[in-house]
């Protein structure tokens, strides 16, 4: 088995990431909005562990920047956080791939917490501190729905 040769079309990666970005922007009632799983981050993580060549750090940076603009955050905040976790995923993709789903969820939790941590740190440094416990919830909800998201994304390409 050679996972490194899996060929994933770039269109698929960009298309699913764009869909995830749009889903991130769809307004939800208050409670649901707070626990909304970070689908964009999860999609980018999925592709960068599965196909680190197609979905690379550039995708993390580009979609992070799009999120900055669309959500009115500081330019570069989500870009930095997302390219950071993408970098980790590309670096450690062999570690996290082909593991039981439960273990993958655990990896996803760590990555999502790191992502939220970078956002939190930048918020604090730039003088917009926001220390509510609620901001860490999406990482946990994201890890909880990781098997579902990974399963759905797995159906979009032929099995390895």
């Amino acid at each position, binding site marked *: 088995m*050679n996972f*490194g*040769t899996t060929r994933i079309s770039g269109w698929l990666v960009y298309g699913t990431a764009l869909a995830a*970005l*749009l889903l*991130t*922007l*769809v*307004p*939800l009632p*208050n409670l649901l*909005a*707070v626990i*909304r799983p970070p689908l964009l981050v999860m999609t980018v993580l999925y592709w960068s562990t599965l196909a*680190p*060549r197609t979905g*690379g*750090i*550039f995708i*993390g*940076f580009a979609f*992070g*920047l*799009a999120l*900055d*603009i*669309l*959500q*009115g*955050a*500081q*330019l*570069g*905040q989500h*870009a*930095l956080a997302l*390219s*950071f976790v*993408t*970098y980790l995923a*590309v*670096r450690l993709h062999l570690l996290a791939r082909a593991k039981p789903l439960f273990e993958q969820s655990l990896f996803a939790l760590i990555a999502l917490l790191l992502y939220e941590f970078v956002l939190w740190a*930048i918020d604090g440094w*730039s003088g*917009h501190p*926001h220390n*509510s416990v*609620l*901001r860490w919830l999406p990482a946990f909800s994201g890890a909880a729905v990781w098997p579902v998201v990974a399963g759905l994304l797995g159906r979009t390409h032929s099995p390895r």
Partner: protein
Amino acid sequence: MAFSGRGSGHRSSRDSAPGPRFAVFALLSLICLYYDQRDGWLGSVRYALQGAAYPLQWLVNAPFAGWQGLRSSLSTRDDLRREIAQLREQQNEMAVVALRMEALQHENAQLRALNLAVPPLVTQRLAAEVINIELSPVKQRLMLNKGRRAGAFQGQAVVDARGLLGQLARVGPWSSELILITDPEHAVPVQIARNGLRSIAVGAGNSGELLLPYLPVNSDVKPGDLLVTSGLGGVFPAGYPVATVTGIKRDPVLLLTQVRARPLATLERDRVVMLLWFDATHAAAPVAPVASDTLPQVTLGAPTDAAEAEPSAEDTTTEVPPP
């Protein structure tokens, strides 16, 4: 590397070095973060990107707009009749209120010894629709579908039919970001309409609430008091209704009263909001904040005669005479 010999043959140079690539993008992000704080040349980059992002915002909003359109086109004749009757009734009520309004304005002008018609404060207004887009659940922001092309500017006051909503934080070509008065980073200078007591209302960040954290424990404030803008701060004109006081907690241990207030504007349900332009020469227009470098220079350390050095209320902009 024996087992991956096939794969390494056509490895592109792109993924062979994730470290340097990450370093480049991290540096780029940090540069963006640094300059975005300082409103420099990045402002125009952001403006352009915001324009490029508008189609995406439109796309997310489209199902909601479509649903609204479908609903209004499917509404029956009876529904429309009822709505027209309701609106007529409302309009009659408003007209009766407005009858007294003009008389009151004249009376006010006479009391102020102006003896001339007061020009209207609002010179121009523009309705903007709220784009259905999630900004951040923890921030109290809205996206509006009017931008610089429609004349909107940063810091512009936004109201709805009931009261003050907030101000424009970022303005793109076709869209702009409204920061609500309930956002934890927003503060609006207010005064109590009953007695003119001035304070600052800070957003509580959740559930549409305002806090007045700077009122002394013995201040005259009661539940039900109406808070209006005081006109200080240089953004909002004086006299716009903001909120009503809902709860007061006086703790003898603390020096300050803890006052909560509920905004009058229906922040959660607004779909159409109003951008306002003001006549700068009007008495109630917002006073532009004085930049610190135009304040009178006072040399510290040198002993001054208090009576002589005290600047009079009329000419605070003149230099303090040297002792």
